[in-house]
């Protein structure tokens, strides 16, 4: 009885893991600054949100994603709502892709991801520079987009293992 209950709570925790990782990543901001790599950065929440909303993962609630965006803005110091809008737009893009796709193809998803993150980063850059008068380095955005796109395929293979483990 005890072991069943333990197994049940572990399963519950395991099924909530993606949203937990999302919150840890927005609060922690994996940055690797101490490696002193110039411009190097990637947006892990983008990859996570894109993958799990594309798979229509049942524990990936949009409102939780929205709140994670607010947390990210607070930690990074951006005006409130910017990251939330970006995350929700990713969710919209994946919902649209789900609706129009009959046979999913990982490579097509990958390039669709590139298109979406480029669009969202451009939107971010425009809002921040035009409406909030922020001085930003365009190169940082480009490098960030490139690394996010490159790491997508690696993280996707890890997430697939996770989903496989959950289904088993």
């Amino acid at each position, binding site marked *: 009885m005890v072991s069943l209950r333990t197994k049940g709570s572990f399963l519950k925790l395991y099924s909530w893991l993606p949203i937990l990782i999302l919150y840890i990543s927005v609060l922690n901001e994996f940055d690797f600054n101490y490696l002193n790599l110039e411009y190097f*950065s990637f947006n892990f929440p983008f990859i996570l949100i894109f993958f799990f909303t594309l798979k229509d993962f049942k524990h990936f609630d949009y409102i939780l994603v929205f709140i994670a965006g607010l947390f990210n803005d607070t930690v990074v*110091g951006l005006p409130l709502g910017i990251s939330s*809008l970006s995350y*929700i737009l990713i969710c919209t893009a994946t919902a649209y892709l789900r609706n129009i796709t009959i046979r999913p193809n990982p490579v097509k998803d990958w390039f669709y991801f590139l298109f979406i993150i480029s669009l969202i980063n451009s939107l971010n850059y425009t809002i921040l520079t035009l409406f909030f008068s922020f001085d930003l380095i365009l190169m940082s955005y480009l490098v960030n987009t490139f690394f996010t796109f490159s790491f997508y395929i690696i993280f996707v293979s890890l997430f697939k293992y996770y989903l496989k483990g959950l289904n088993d």
Partner: protein
Amino acid sequence: MASSRDDFIIAIRSAFLKKSTQQKFSLLTLVFFSLFIIILSSLDFKVIRYSKAVINELVYRSSFIVSVPENFIKDSFIQVKDYTNFFNKYKKNISELESLKSNYVSNEITEYENRELKELINDYVSSSNKILAKIIVDHDSPFLKSIIINKGSKDNIKIGTNIYDQSYLVGRVIELNYKTSRVLLLSDLNSNVPVTIAPQNIQAIVTGSGVDSGKIKYIKSGLSGQLIDDSIVYTSGTGAIFKSGVPIGKLKFFEENSTNEYKVEFYSDFSQLKYVFAEIITQTSILPTTQESNENSVEKNNPLDAKLKILEDELNIIEESNKKFQKENENLKSEINNLNYKVLNLNNKISSQNKTIDQFNLDTDELKFLRLNLTYGHKCRKSLFNNKGFIVGSAGYKDCVLRKGKIDG
């Protein structure tokens, strides 16, 4: 054609409006909600400010807790890196310490003088108190360079409070909460600091480059040619945003697109900060003494006269002390002359005594020879019966007499 457009519209509409069983809100609602928040956050209402401060407090604390494992890895990495450079750094530090020790004394004097002059100009004493603050979040994003410290309005921190690492400027507070605040680092693109470049004494503005250095902005045309490597950059205090005379970094020359460029290498390494100092400035007016207050009552109407009077008094004091010093100086000079004369006399006396001693030694040797000559002279003198002897007066004869008549050494 029309059907594909319909499909697209249906897919879009479905994506925005359709809620699956788990979702409580449609995406369109959330998009509008985000836009609403963005607009609200750009407005400066009191309610928004307070709610933002509450969210900030909660998120910063959570972020600090969540960051513990990453910070541990980061610290370990830095420690390993430090150990490898430990000896070289130690040697460099020793030589730096020696030169700093010598500069310290003169700096203290300058600081004291500076403070006195400022008091004279402002009529108030600005006493600053540096409080130690811990950095609780330092996730500088690739786009914004800022840190969160654990001191806020509760600790008298204000928007614009200068933040230091030891005595080097790090940045200033741009967002204030009750127990936390956000510091914009000098390396951020949005940071602008009015500076003076020494020793050329050139005024400029340093802005962050978005990486770990700064760059020179708004320098008067023609003056950039005077800049040299390793010039010191410190705050000029123009605009009263930053306190004047605070060191920032050194100028470094580099070439970009075949043009000579200068970057500012900050003294402080912003990626290694753990604790910083926040400078709380309080201004207290200089209260006149009872005696002075009577005199000042007449001059109260004209503060310029009062300042002039203070300056005149200062001048008088300085002149009086100057006279004292001159008099003392003359006394000392005459004393030195007397002493020099005494030294000369004593030297003469010593040399004459030395001569006497030398003469005495010579006479003693001669007497000894004459005494021995009387006794042993016949043994050393060359004669018909003494072929081995020496001619009287020769060096051999003298030696023989001193050896008490022994001819073969």
